[in-house]
């Protein structure tokens, strides 16, 4: 999944001389929390609603007037991403730098913005239930051909796989969660057990866990 699939294209931006109070109003009206600051065609900074609130607060070490330009409170230089970056790379940068958004640049042109909430939306899309389906969870040995063996068995049962998610589970093991187009996952679980798979869900007998 690439940044361009989840980013907001053509984001609202402001100039560096925009007064703080105007920037705050734009955020309020658009129900947004991040504004790229652009001078000409060049991205020069980012302001967040938190920057603005802190700058005008008596808690601030150097309080600004609401009429002060945003250049005085914006973050710069700006960490950015590219439309063809994988979203996990964008997420990694945001997580490590503890920042809430990344402007998306194509060359020097601002083409979009991704925020933490967009990453959450992507997670929902990856794990979500798009069609009625049952859930099966299997622990696989981390070696070539295991997932292929699993999916081949589902194919033989004429079962459609709606989504598949894998993540590491200790040394040399991985958990694979599949959403499959059947109500009768117990029967499937029994077949998988017979074929030597370690099925974590559903329980083949009640209360096995």
């Amino acid at each position, binding site marked *: 999944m690439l940044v361009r699939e989840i980013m907001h294209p053509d984001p609202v931006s402001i100039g560096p001389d925009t007064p703080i109070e105007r920037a705050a109003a734009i955020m309020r009206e658009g129900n947004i929390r991040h504004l790229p600051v652009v001078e000409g065609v060049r991205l020069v900074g980012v302001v967040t609603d938190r920057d603005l609130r802190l700058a005008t607060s008596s808690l601030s070490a150097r309080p600004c007037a609401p009429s002060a330009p945003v250049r005085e409170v914006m973050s710069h230089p700006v960490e950015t991403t590219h439309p063809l970056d994988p979203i996990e790379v964008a997420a990694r940068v945001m997580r490590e730098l503890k920042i809430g958004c990344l402007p998306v640049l194509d060359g020097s042109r601002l083409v979009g913005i991704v925020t933490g909430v967009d990453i959450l939306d992507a997670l929902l899309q990856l794990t979500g239930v798009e069609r*009625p389906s049952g859930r099966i969870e299997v622990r696989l040995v981390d070696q070539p051909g295991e997932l292929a063996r699993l999916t081949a068995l589902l194919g033989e049962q004429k079962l459609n796989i709606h989504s598949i998610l894998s993540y590491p589970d200790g040394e040399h093991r991985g958990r694979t969660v599949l959403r499959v187009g059947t109500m009768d996952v117990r029967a499937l679980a029994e077949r998988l057990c017979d074929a030597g798979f370690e099925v974590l869900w559903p329980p083949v007998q009640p209360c096995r866990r």
Partner: protein
Amino acid sequence: MPKVVHHPAYGRYDLGPEHPFSPGRIDMVLDLLRELGVALEPVEATPATVEDLLGVHAEDYVRAVEAASAGGTAADLASFGLGTADNPIVPGMGEAARWLAGGTLHGARMIAAGDAELVLQLGGGFHHARHCLASGFCLYNDLALAIRHLVSRRKRVAYLDLDVHHGDGVQEIFYTDEDVLTLSFHESGEYLFPGTGWPHELGQGMGRGLKLNVPLEPFTEGDSYFNALEKVSVPALDFFRPDVLVVQCGADAHHLDPLADLMLTTQDFERIFRFVLGLAEQYAGGRALFTLGGGYSMRVTPRVWAILYLVLHGLPIPEALPAAWLERWRDRLGSPSLATLHDGAEPYPAVPRRGEITRQNAMMVDRLLDAVARYWL
């Protein structure tokens, strides 16, 4: 006295010998009731017409089902959920599904016309069928058809789904409808088909706050289930004030069901059915339409539905199962041999995580009631 609806043609809804949704379940209930000395004189209805179906299903979907059922091929059968492991294409399935839908619809017509208050349809409960999709063994949504008819007669309908699976089809069809309250109690979609039925699914537009879902933890037992049922259904019905209750009585929340993971006993089902009957009397003027639903253990499902029949008719629950019935269905009942209509004492080993499961379910109920409170002002 309740009116009972049934037609021998229901048995034609047969998705194959290996398929869990066996028409044999209804045969076993009817036979059990007769052996228990019940005088069964069911009302027979006619099949739902294609026109009836168009009230809840898309025209191209109905055409696809009927074409596949007649042995023809239509484009995109798979996109309608047809020809899958759960919904295989079987000759005559469309007509059979219309017989069943017609029965449930007839129940609704009798109630709307004032010819009956309580109706038990001995079949139906196809709650997964969507506007445009066959799913979870279901083709035509008989419940939605019945609800649509009641709404067209200016009745406000509360739909209560006791099946262990989320009633996603009924919810979808009435998601924006202000005259229909849907309440579904089911094993969490995190673990069970169809994967939906979360407390944040509250309805849209005029229907907002009128679609309620209580996902329950796997291995939930009777007391925790009943607590959730009571805590949610009472305030919801008190707020909504329905004219009619429509109840899907799937038996698959039983602990022996092979497709799911809840831990109800037949005693729990009796308690639930008596409670729901009380809700109908208190909040819907005694008007309620009960259907069957899921329930895939041959040892369990006929007993649960016989108990449903006896409770609705105010008849005593006999202790013993008739010997002739046990003998006749011996192969299907399997071993060890059964003796009583209710489950025996200590029917399953203690659930190790009982405390945690009970707390989590109680919190789920609280969160749902909090979320919905502002729509009930």
